[in-house]
């Protein structure tokens, strides 16, 4: 589904991603871990199309289509969803109106008519239940006055509503207490299917106790330096990122 080859990206002329390769197939969950500053969030932002991030080399294909050529909205319409690390508040834009606009623009892109009001409301109800998102929050202004945990849960609610092919969760676990983490994880697990894929960007192994990944990758210094299964995450937890840094730096020195 997603194929990243030799991706190089920089922010304000500082090189962050330095030759990243990743293959994600439908039905898979990939976890990307790594120390602070390794380029985890950059990867999410580059895939979503944030302008400040400049791709200097490499290729990203989504089902064979060149993602890097598309505007952020077209990437979303093609089925890429970034759950933001810091969802922003937009007072005056209602959550529901925002979702209706987004959903219908995605449908229009696919040549589908706008969703009937009743179908839309049914979907809202169904997904609210699925990801345990408070109906009161859904009717408020977008993230306005939401707690950190509520904002993250709103990201998952949006994810459920928009049903993307590829969801990238950028440190969705950060700032969540254990109950909120369970709810978010339960939501994601409900949404997993053979047709979609997830990339979980996280600093801690904790999230992976709840969302079990098929693959774990370690990002360090702008490249994936280790790939494995969920056991790799446990090993990381035990030995710490210094272990990776030391071994990788040693390899580099040879």
């Amino acid at each position, binding site marked *: 589904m997603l194929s990243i080859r030799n991706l190089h990206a920089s922010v304000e002329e500082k090189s962050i991603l330095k030759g990243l390769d990743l293959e994600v197939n439908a039905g898979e969950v990939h976890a990307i871990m790594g120390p602070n500053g390794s380029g985890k969030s950059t990867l999410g932002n580059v895939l*979503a*199309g*944030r*302008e400040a991030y400049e791709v200097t080399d490499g290729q990203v294909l989504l089902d064979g289509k060149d993602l890097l050529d598309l*505007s*952020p*909205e077209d*990437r*979303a*319409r093609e089925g890429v*969803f*970034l759950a*933001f690390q810091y*969802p*922003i508040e*937009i*007072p*005056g*834009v209602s959550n529901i*109106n*925002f*979702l209706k*606009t*987004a*959903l219908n*623009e*995605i449908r229009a*892109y696919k040549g589908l008519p706008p969703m009937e009001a009743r179908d839309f409301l049914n979907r809202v109800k169904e997904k609210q239940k699925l990801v345990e998102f408070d109906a009161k929050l859904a009717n408020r*202004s977008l993230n306005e006055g939401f707690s950190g945990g509520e904002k993250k849960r709103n990201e998952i609610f*949006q994810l459920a509503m*928009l049903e993307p092919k590829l969801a990238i969760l950028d440190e969705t676990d950060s700032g969540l207490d254990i109950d909120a983490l369970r709810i978010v994880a339960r939501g994601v697990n409900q949404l997993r299917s053979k047709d979609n894929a997830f990339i979980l960007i996280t600093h801690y192994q904790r999230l992976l106790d709840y969302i079990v990944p098929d693959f774990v990758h370690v990002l360090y210094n702008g490249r994936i330096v280790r790939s494995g299964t969920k056991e790799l995450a446990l090993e990381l937890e035990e030995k710490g990122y210094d272990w990776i840094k030391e071994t990788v730096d040693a390899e580099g020195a040879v």
Partner: protein
Amino acid sequence: MLDELATDTMLTKVSDSLYTQLIKTFEGNLPSAEPYSLDEIRKQAFERFKRSGFPTVKHEDWKYTNLQPLVSKHYALQPPKPKARPAVGKAIIPGLDAHRVVLVDGRYNSELSTVEDVDGLSVMPIHDAFDRLCFAKYFSEYADKSDNPLVALNTALFTGGLFIEVGKNRQLDKPVHVIHVASAATPSFVQVRNMYVMSTFAEAEIIESFITDDGAAENLQNAVSEIVLREGAKLQHYALQLADSPSGYLNHTEIYQEKHSLYNNYNCTFPGSTLVRNNINVRLGNSDVESHLYGVALTAGKQLVDNHTIVDHLKPHCESYEWYKNITQDTSTAVFNGKIFVREDAQKTNAFQQNNNMLIGEKSAIYTKPQLEIFADDVKCSHGCTIGQFDEQALFYLRARGISEAQARVLLVHAFAFDVTSRFANPAVREYVEHLVEEGLS
């Protein structure tokens, strides 16, 4: 007091063509055959205007709004006979059930007006109201005491307008929708005088729309509205500026409120008319009065929209609340000047003012000035002003969910205007205005 000080000396007499034309045409030749008292008022007002001339940018209140290009043109002073049935479709508000009043070039059009016979509601051309007691009592009583030379000019020479009176204890169950159509096919200078009187404990809603008929020339309108709210009266007053370019609108609205009355003004301007200047003066003339002024100006092209408001707290225990939002596109300009007076008598005043601006056009401009003059010592007054652009983070967030950049901008402008539009008491007008905001974004 500061405000009322005649500023004749500050205004430079200009030998622009409209001024010369007006003086030449009407000196010793004012409209007459009216009650004698009106003749006298007109004469004095004419003299005042003759001395002052049109305001220039040297006058502080007109610093950013240069009338010279507009008043150096030649206009027909008596607008030609208007079209019998100009189209009013542009002013229709979906879902609004209202008494409709249509004024074409300031003249009441009875064929297009559909005012139902409601006990306690009087709607008529201003000329038919000259013999009314309340007309004699309020005409030029407050508006002409402001220092706006355009009011003097209007008092001397208005040719049309509307009179509305809502009787004692009457609560209108339908709003009155006043549609002002500019239709003259040769450039005309139209002077409109309106008076709305809300008797004691009367309640009403007046919605005014300004539109241009197809084929209309570049017209200039100088309108004065005098609004009086007697004790306990309530008025919701909307003004929706939808006219086309090129055109100019100079509106002076003078509101006088008596005890326990409530006046809400909702003032919206959309892309179109070349120059719009609104003077809205609210005089809180007795205690326990409440006034709200809300404004949205969405400008585009080379448009200039200037809102000058005065909230004048004359007596104790009154509340005023003002919130204006400007959104400027292209090379347009928006001006906001919010003056609040709290006179010596006006203890326990609670006055709030807020002005937020969003500069969208890289070459657009915003001039804003809060101006508080407080002479009482036990009052609560606050004011604030912000200026900003599109929030790039918010735009990206919306786009990352599949929303186009254009639609994301619409959502963000809606959000920006929300503080004001959410205060609209009439849901049909609110929805309509939100739609106009969407349409007005280029």
